[in-house]
């Protein structure tokens, strides 16, 4: 009972803050409401007992990525006059929502029909660090390694892009 109430409160919080994220005029409002979205999603994970997902969501998304985005927003020091002029923003958002709505209905019914809905967790409160670690390193080792190579490549790419070109200077 309490879990359901919490679930609806958190979902409402996620939806509202996501709406603010796309409709806010100033970038800093958007970034801060995005933090609320991410932390609420983390809370949803915690509600399911997935403690490891909760921690990574907060450490990586809320703690690191959003902090960098906010840092850059502050660094650029955007004034009101630098923001693009969007006179029909509300109308655009309303109509695009209406356009997407039928697809959403189809998507929800598809998800409800998929076998994943009824699939139970291996046991209650699955999602601690040991469970996730053993699943990753036993069942999905190759995928995991490929993803880490991808991350390494992007890391090296970022460094080589940021490095100053000596010939130009």
């Amino acid at each position: 009972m309490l879990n359901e109430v919490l679930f609806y409160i958190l979902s409402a919080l996620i939806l509202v803050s996501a709406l603010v994220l796309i409709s806010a005029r100033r970038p800093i409002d958007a970034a801060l409401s995005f933090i609320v979205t991410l932390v609420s999603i983390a809370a949803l994970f915690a509600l399911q007992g997935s403690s490891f997902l909760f921690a990574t969501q907060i450490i990586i998304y809320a703690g690191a990525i959003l902090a960098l985005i906010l840092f850059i927003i502050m660094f650029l020091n955007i004034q009101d006059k630098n923001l693009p002029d969007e006179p029909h923003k509300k109308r655009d958002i309303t109509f695009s929502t209406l356009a997407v709505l039928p697809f959403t209905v189809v998507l929800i019914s598809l998800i409800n029909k998929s076998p994943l809905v009824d699939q139970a967790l291996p046991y209650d409160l699955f999602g601690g660090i040991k469970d996730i670690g053993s699943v990753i390193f036993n069942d999905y080792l190759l995928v995991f390694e490929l993803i880490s190579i991808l991350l390494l490549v992007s890391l090296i790419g970022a460094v080589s892009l940021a490095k100053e070109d000596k010939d130009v200077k």
Partner: protein
Amino acid sequence: MHELLILTPFILTLLFSLATVPLLVWMERRIAALIQDRYGPNRCHVGGIRLAGIIQSIADMMKLVFKEEVAPSHIKNRFYYLVAPSLIFIASFLTFMVIPYADNLELNGTSYVMQALPTDLGILWFIAFAGLSVYGIIIGGWASHSKYAILGSLRASAQVISYEVSMGLAIVSLLLTYNSIHLNDIVTYQSQTFFGFIPAWGIIMQPLATLIFVITSFAETNRAPFDAAEGESEIVAGYHTEYGAMKFGLFFVAEYIAMAASGALMVTLFFGGYQLPWLTTQDLITHFDILSGVIIGFGLIFMFLFLRWMRRNNSYNEKSKRETKIYAVTIVLFSLSLFSLIAYSIYAGYSDDQKHIGVMLIQFSIFAAKIFTLHFIYIWVRWTFPRFRYDQTQKLGWNILLPLAILNIVITAIVIIGVN
């Protein structure tokens, strides 16, 4: 009793975080004075009782609470301006919730966990909320709408983000050693010995990780020598320049709570947590009679030494003689009644539950002693080292600590594979 035991870790969290803040402020001022060869605040009193100056920091806290709340008129985003100090306060306070204050208490078949949040996340929880505290600084600096504040918050956030990387990597090598992320498991691991006589404390098993972790947690808490974010000689007070009264107070208290939390984590990770070296919890329980005898002996010696020291040194003016007398009577009455209670219990024989609870209390006090030693070191460092210049901070973080941390992970992994 059942409810009380469940509430105990929460009460201890409040004691170690909020209630120690006036004590830490006092320590900071008196140790600064000690290092600079002066007295420090010691004259504020209530009816002649000065408590060595603690009254001053209580008066300070009361001043912060009752001061008029003023907001500068140039603040455009009052919501962000007001929410920032609470954010940093909440995040620092939450980091404290996973610290184990004593071993799990077994009473009548039920096990009580002496952590405020008995989650299996352990150290991940600490990293998560220590990372969130940077938002308070960012938002506060941005909403203050002043150049000093925004410079300070830019410095602080860049520093916290870059030192978090090395801190995380240092923790990875620790987790390889301890084989668990649960803080209570980590403490239990440290009660072992290797080669039969060296306690397996983190500082001995992982000296490099200890060094990196200590440096990065100084930087994470924005304390000297990494406090360029509030460098008063260049940018007034940094990110809290535009804050006053309790809004500033929250920033101020949050800094001390963050310091206390990282001190508690350091105790847990590197200094054996609530354990004494060479003695596991089970040893303490089996030899509890001897232990309480030792406590009485040392307690009496310390009491006499302290009384002698106080009689010689507490001579500020004529009034302080009366003060010394009051202290002496209180100390003697309290410790004698405590010791006679212990002595009577030894004579009457302990029941099993009493032994368990007694060991728990001893472990609380060991933890407190260790954490206050670390606070002393924090303060000592602050008043001894000059502030790093900002580019030096970044250079230390990225060019020295990060490669060292990665090297340490590789070494740890090789050693672990070699040993197994």
